[in-house]
Structure formats: C-alpha cells, structure tokens
C-alpha cells in the first residue's frame, strides 16, 4: 500500500470513525510469497480441535501456515468481520443486525459441539446433580444463593446438599459458550429471556462473589480453585474436568427429562435440528425437542468473509475448510473423539460445502 493512501486514510479517520470501525479494511497484502499465512482466532472451545487439525493439515499442505489463537468467540466474530483474522472461530452465529451490516459474511459449521455445566462442591463432585434451566436461571440471576436451596433440593432428592453459598463463574470475554448457555436459560425460562436475554456477552445480574474467567481454560481453573463454584464449560475441556475430579450436571431438556452429556444424546438433539437448518446455517441447536436430546449443543462455526483479498487466500481457505468438514479429514472420528465433538450430519455438511464454495 502506498504511503499516500495511508495518509489519506488517516485524514479521513477522525471524521469517519464509524465506517472505520464497521470494518473498513484494506485488502492489500499481495500474494508475493508462496506460502499463505492464515490467522485463526476465537472460540476457546474450538481451539483444542484446531490445535489438532493444524499440524495434521499443514504437514500434508506445506504451502499454508495457520496460527491459532484462543481468544473467545467474540474476538473471532469481530476480527473476521474486520479482516484482521481470516478464520473467526465461533460457537455463535452472527446476529441479523451484523449480517445486514456486513454483507457477505459466512457462518460455516465445522462440527457439532456441546456444553457441560460443571461444579466443584466438595463431597458431591462424583454425584451428577440434576439441574434445570429455571434453577440455573435462579443461580446465575442471584436468586438461588445456597447449594441447599429448596429449588435445587427438589430436583435432587436424597442428595445431601451443603449449606454453602454458590459462587457463579461466567466468561469475561465475548464467548460462544455464554451465547449457548444464555440461550438455554432464555429458551427454558421466560423471565431470563425477558430480562437478560442471550448473546456472546450478556449483562450478568449482580450475584455477589461472581467471578469472571477468561476463556474455557480460565473457567476450568476458576472452579478448580474455588470450592462451591459452578460454571458452564465447552465439552472439549471434558478431559480437564475429569482429571481435576470436578462435577458434571445432568440437565433437563425440553421434554422435561434429565439427560447426561453423551455422544448419543448429542446426536439425538442434532438429528432433531438438522432438518430445520437453513441455507445460511444460522440456527440455534439449543433446547432441542426429544426425550434423549441433550439441551446445550451447537454448531461450531468458522466465520469467514466470502470476499477474500486475493485468490490465493480464498483457494487455501476453501481447501482447508473442505478438508475440515470431510469425514476423511477434519471430521474423522479420532479428531472428534479427542475433543468429544460430533461430526456434522451429512445434510449439514452439504450446506457447509455449498457455503465454502462461495469463498472467492
């Protein structure tokens, strides 16, 4: 880019900051080098999978370099919109307002993920507590403040709950986990829907003692070090949960059943929602109907600009995503198992492939 355009832009800057913020980008990096550098940033839930994918993929494709960053879906969304990153990893799709504002953004599901509700209650971590949307709404809303609250006790007959305050842990970074967790609360509990709603960042009601943690790793560390705490954590961190002997709750689904997070239950929920998935694939899979459906599952998205700065980058992106959603490539069973994800159902994979083809 020439110095003159840069100066010109600087002059325009002060007056037109709104446009600048909206993602004014200079598609200027020419493809001089043979290797293409891609930056992946966003979801800490998707991060462990990308860290498995990238070495496997780049080994077979030395022409591309991919940096991965665990920053939260919020960052993934905003930095792919602004073009700072080429691949925005997100557990959440873009809102209608953002889609209208930034034409040509793609939300490409790469796999299906799910979310655990975990806790660290000394003596009860081996017991799978039963929790429901309304009870979690009470806990995160600051209304249910003790573990032996009647509302929790009613769901868990026979379990000796401690008379101890609950420390809620939520994400500080803009997060797809916050998005799907708040959707679970909103879809199951009208009062949450009407007050807090859902989003990658929500205004958590004041629950004194509540801790904000950075990324899924921060959530794990926070409940690990804080007795009597509760958190929502992406399933790709299940190994860390098991290792640290933390509790994992059974959640009440739309049919009123308490279900565990198992591959079969995630698949049941996915099956109920796949057919409803529209062509742009922006749909919440949370609170799916069905007796076996696990209530908090979601598409893991790559947020990508359809219009790339140059053909080389576009070609590498198409190639990488095609590999990623293929059952022989990124969606292979051993990758999915490593992070407890579920491969895309064929119908969804087909929609993703159609979206990938539009990257130019």
């Amino acid at each position, binding site marked *: 880019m020439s110095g003159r355009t840069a100066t010109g832009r600087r002059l325009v800057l002060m007056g037109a900051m709104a446009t600048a913020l909206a993602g004014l980008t200079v598609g200027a990096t020419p493809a001089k080098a043979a290797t293409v550098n891609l930056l992946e940033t966003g979801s800490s839930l998707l991060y462990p999978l990308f860290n498995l994918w990238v070495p496997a993929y780049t080994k077979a494709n030395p022409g591309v370099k991919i940096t991965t960053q665990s920053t939260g879906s919020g*960052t993934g969304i905003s*930095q792919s919109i602004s073009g700072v990153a080429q691949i925005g990893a997100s557990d959440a799709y873009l809102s209608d307002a953002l889609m209208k504002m930034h034409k040509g953004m793609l939300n490409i599901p790469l796999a299906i993920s799910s979310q655990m509700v975990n806790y660290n209650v000394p003596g009860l971590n081996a017991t799978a507590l039963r929790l429901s949307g309304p009870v979690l709404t009470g806990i995160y809303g600051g209304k249910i403040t003790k573990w032996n609250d009647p509302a929790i006790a009613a769901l868990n007959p026979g379990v000796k709950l401690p008379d101890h305050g609950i420390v809620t842990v939520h994400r500080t970074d803009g997060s797809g986990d916050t998005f799907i967790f708040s959707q679970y609360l909103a879809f199951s509990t009208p009062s949450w829907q009407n007050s807090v*709603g859902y989003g*990658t960042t929500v205004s958590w009601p004041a629950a004194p*003692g509540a801790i904000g943690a950075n990324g899924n790793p921060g959530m794990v560390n926070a409940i690990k070090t804080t007795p009597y705490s509760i958190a929502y954590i992406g399933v790709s961190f299940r190994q860390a949960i098991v290792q640290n002997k933390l509790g994992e709750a059974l959640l009440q689904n739309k049919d009123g059943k308490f279900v565990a997070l198992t591959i079969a239950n995630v698949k049941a929920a996915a099956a109920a929602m796949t057919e409803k998935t529209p062509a742009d694939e922006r749909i919440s899979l949370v609170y799916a109907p069905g007796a076996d459906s696990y209530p908090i599952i979601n598409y893991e998205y790559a947020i990508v600009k359809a219009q790339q700065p140059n053909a080389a980058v576009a070609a590498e992106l198409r190639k990488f995503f095609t590999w990623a959603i293929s059952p022989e490539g990124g969606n292979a069973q051993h990758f999915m198992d490593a992070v407890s994800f579920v491969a895309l159902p064929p119908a969804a994979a087909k929609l993703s492939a159609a979206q990938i083809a539009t990257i130019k």
Partner: protein
Amino acid sequence: MSFRRVLAVFAAVLPASLIAVRLFLAVYSWPAVRFNGLGFITSTSWNLGNTYGSPIVRNGVQVLPGAHYGILFLIAGTLLSTLIALVIAVPIGVGAAIFLAEAVPARFRMWLSFFVELLAAVPSVVFGLWGYAVLVPLLGHYVFPVMGRVLGFVPFLGGSTGSGSGLLTAGIVLSLMIVPLIAATLRDAILAEPMVVRESAAALGVTRFEAVWKVVLPGVRKILIGVTILATGRALGETMAVLMVSGNALNYLPPNIYSPISTMAAFIVSQLDSALQDPTGLAVRSLAEVALVLSVISLGVNTLARLVLYRAGLKAARV
C-alpha cells in the same frame, strides 16, 4: 536558529502524540458520552443490550435494545484497589527507604539498592503470573478464611472470603509493584539530605532514629508525597497484573475486601472484543469513554502531584 527549529519539529512528536491520543478519545467517545450522560459514572450496569436484537434509536443515537452503560463498579474497583495498595506500600516503602539509607553499611547499600531498583523493572505480567499461580491459591485457601473468621466483626472484613481472586489480592499485588518506586525514590532523597541536618539534630541530643524520623523525613516530605501520587497513577492504570488476580467482577460493588472486582484498565482489555460485536458501535465508544474517564483521573492525579510539589517547593524555598 534553524537547529532549534529542526529540533523543535522532532521534539513536537511527543506532545503531538499525547494530544492525538487525547483528542481521539474525546472525539471518538463523544456519542457515548452523549448517550450515557452522568449515569455512566453513577450507576452500576455494563449492558450491551440484546446483541441479537435489532438496533433502535434512543436519544438520537442508534443503540441495541436494553443497552445501558454505567461503570461505578469499575471506578470503585479501581479506586479501592489503589487505596489498599497505597495503605500497604507507603509504610513499607518508607521503612525500606530509611533502612537502606540509614541502617545499611555503605558497602552493602549499593547492592541492596540495586536489588530494589531491579524490582521496579520486573514486568507487570510477571507480577500477575506470581499473583495468579502463587498468591491467589495461598490467600484463598489459607489466609482469607482465617482473616474472615478472626476479623469478621470488622465491617468490610467479614463475610464470604471467596476464591482468593479479588480486591485485597489485587491491592497486595499492586502494592508490590509500587513499593520499589517509593523506596528507591525516597532513599535517594534521604541520602541527598545534607549530613549537617543530621549532625545538628544529633547535637540537640536526639537519638539517631529520631533525627531521621523528625528531621530528615520531614525534609523529604514533598518528595514522599510526590512519589506517592506518582505511584497512585501507576496503580490506577495497571492492567495485566490486576486482570490476572482481580476475579473480573461484573456489575456489582464489592460487598467485602475479598470480593472479586474489576478495574477500568483491566476492563478495557477484557471487554474490547465483546464490545466490537455491538453492530451500533456504541459499546466500543463507551469503552473509549472508560479510557477517557481513566485518563481524566490520571491526568488529575498527575496535575495534583505537580501542584503539591510546586507548592511544597515554594514553601521550602521561602523557609
């Protein structure tokens, strides 16, 4: 004269960049200032609104439904953690400075002083690392529960002692970061006080400590005040270390000294990417307003420091 002019052009970059940053903050946050009004600093609610809803127009500004920005909890967290840091750091800093300047034999003094000065250079994130990996578990598991039981009757010291991440921990880490600054500056000042001051005090029949405490220390009072205010400025703006040990509280005021908090500087780091998702751009501008408020506070503190030093200097000159 042309040398001076060329030099002035180069030298002007410093003031120019400061003005650019200031101007940028003011201009950029202006829509937020208008929308948020005074409630920004008097209410406690950072709420982007419904990020998946359609933007509406309120007060002539496009916003998300339900958006409200109030950062009283951040201002409280920032000021309280700084206050705790000062309460811990000033006595320790003064003590360490007197010890270094008056009690240590000259040949060790250089090495010990050197040690203190090196500490001032340890990066913020390393303090944060220590706080996160060592101090938080230690305080949360062993110290705070005991403190809560023993001192529980004192307001603000009782109640739930939490996880170890919070106000007091942030204050302690901050105090460690500013103690070297206070100690090193004050030591230099004490050493620079003429020997004759001490000797004449001694001639009046006071102990050596009394000479230091009642004669030398008052002599360097203005420097102590100046460096304390300087340290305040540093603590107010400290980011990484606080981010790692504060517990990142959102939307509530700390009920006690163990409670999680957040500070303005840490909040800017942790919220910028969330804010960028507000399609109306108001969240980012409100964050600029946080930066503006922080800048105004630190500008105030710095100006105060200069004013105090200037006045004290005048008085000292007259005496």
